[in-house]
């Protein structure tokens, strides 16, 4: 049983510049700003998040982050802020509290998101009025601590996020484990549910919660009783060692990408997974291995 006892490394001055271009989003030089730094003072720009106007209406940044220009709209995106939702985002959350007719879900945001009882798909077909019996049985659907994949449906007046899980791909998450990465890293793309070639199912939550699991048996589209019942069951399917190892490998690759502060989408994950195949799973935690697989993956990405 050997344990790796290292001594700390000095921060090498050089690489601070290198990972800057990796963050390059829309070409051109990237403008990093501090809170209080003026961005522009000409009036034709509209003001987005993370900025404010002072007396002479110059736009000043209120966040340490990257300036983003989308034709007339200027906004500043923070690197390490907590998740601020947008309608249509796919998020992964953990139920923290069961309240009358609703669940409170922790989505790594400013406040807990709300999942209404009326917003979940119920056993017995799609169109069914919610009755008292459902209200009493709420823990049958989701209990404290359960993981759930949901979509941002609306914003409440106090800014809390409203979620819904109608639709076959949203259900209680099982057969796997959770990886938490900074929410800014997860890139918005068409679909956030991926089945990787190595047979691992991935739910990329835009709030930085990523669920890595074995795909659930049985086709999700069917609406007969057994399948709906299965969406809320807590029992994991049988997972053999090979699947368990590939799930662990994908988790470690995600942690490696997060550590190097690189963007996360399904392609980079596949490349990192392939790059990591030559190391045993537990070595993926080591610093030098992390450096090599992430640089190899980002190199392959830019080659494309």
């Amino acid at each position, binding site marked *: 049983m050997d*344990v790796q*006892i290292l001594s700390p*490394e000095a921060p090498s001055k050089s690489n601070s510049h290198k990972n800057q271009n990796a963050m390059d989003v829309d070409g051109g030089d990237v403008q990093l700003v501090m809170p209080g730094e003026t961005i522009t003072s000409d009036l034709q720009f509209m003001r987005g998040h993370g900025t404010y106007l002072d007396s002479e209406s110059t736009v000043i940044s209120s966040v340490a982050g990257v300036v983003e220009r989308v034709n007339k709209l200027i906004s500043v995106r923070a690197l390490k802020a907590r998740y601020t939702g947008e309608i249509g985002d796919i998020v992964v959350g953990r139920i923290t509290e069961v309240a009358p007719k609703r669940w409170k879900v922790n989505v790594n945001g400013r406040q807990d998101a709300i999942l209404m009882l009326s917003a979940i798909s119920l056993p017995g077909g799609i169109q069914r009025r919610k009755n008292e019996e459902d209200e009493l049985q709420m823990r049958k659907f989701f209990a404290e*601590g359960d993981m759930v994949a949901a979509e941002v449906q609306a914003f409440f007046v106090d800014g809390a996020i409203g979620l819904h899980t109608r639709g076959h791909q949203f259900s209680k998450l*099982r057969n796997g484990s959770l990886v938490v990465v900074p929410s800014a890293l997860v890139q918005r793309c068409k679909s956030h549910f991926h089945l990787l070639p190595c047979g691992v199912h991935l739910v990329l939550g835009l709030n930085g919660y990523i669920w890595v699991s074995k795909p659930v048996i049985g086709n999700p589209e069917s609406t007969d009783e057994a399948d709906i019942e299965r969406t809320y069951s*807590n029992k994991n399917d049988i997972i053999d060692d090979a699947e368990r190892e590939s799930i*662990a490998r994908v988790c470690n690759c995600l942690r490696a990408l997060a550590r190097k502060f690189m963007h996360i989408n399904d392609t980079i994950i596949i490349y990192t997974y392939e790059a990591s195949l030559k190391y045993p799973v537990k070595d993926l*935690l080591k610093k030098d291995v992390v450096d090599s697989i992430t640089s190899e993956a980002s190199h392959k990405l830019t080659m494309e």
Partner: protein
Amino acid sequence: MPYLSQAERDYITEGVQSDLRADGRGRLDYRALVLETGIISQANGSARVRLGDGTDVLVGVKVEIDQVEPDADNVGKVVCNVECSPSASQQFEGHGADDLNNELTQALQRVLGGPQCGINFEKLCIIKGQQCWIVYIDAMILDYSGNVLDTIFMATKAALFNTRIPKTQIQDLGDGEFEFEVLDDVEDAERLDGIENIPIGVTLNKIGTGHIIDASPLEELCTEAKLTIAVNKDSQICGIQKGAEGGIEPGLMSEMIQTAKRIGQSLIQQLDQKLQDEEQQVDEKRLNGENIEKLGFFAMV
């Protein structure tokens, strides 16, 4: 109170069964450690240990002169204290950390407070019946990601290894009166006697029927029974404490004690090796005049 879903709990339990945990480690694999000693200048000895990607413990050792206890007048004293800073995790705000602080402090004091920790307490006594050295060991938990008690033990052993006690000169004033004077020249400050047989802690978490070491926060939430065993270099047991609220079958308990002894042995060897290497590097640098640059909190890892 952090929650865990039933599905994750089963997944982790099955993982421990098939010796493949969520982050790929086997049952008896340790996460990587980062160790640095001597980063606090005003303390007589200090060490900082970071485990895996989270747990971060800073231990400072201060030595002072104190009156001798009436009923134990030829020995020095060791006082331990552990403090969880609220920066470590949200559950430590306000009074959340009181119970954990008390539990960790008692666990450390139980192992290091008496002669069982191997320190030569007689040498800590300056004048019999009057003054003696009192060694304050203060551990601060800056970040929490599981397996805190073992990290504290390792950081404490490193800090004590790094501790230097100023030399004292005793003048005999005749008729049994003694006077002593502390020489504050750093050169002849000497190390604590008996450092090499200070024990370290090995915590075994029983999940399902298997048991693992170095548990991550989620694994600690699924732990039914936790056994912390303090082992020193000649594999004597310096303390056993069970935590969490499940039972352990006696047969399994003795098996766990054996595994803990084995793991403790190799951990101590590798830790001592690391401490010696670091000390050698520092001495070489001091010999050929380079300045010794302590990274402390600027470290990149």
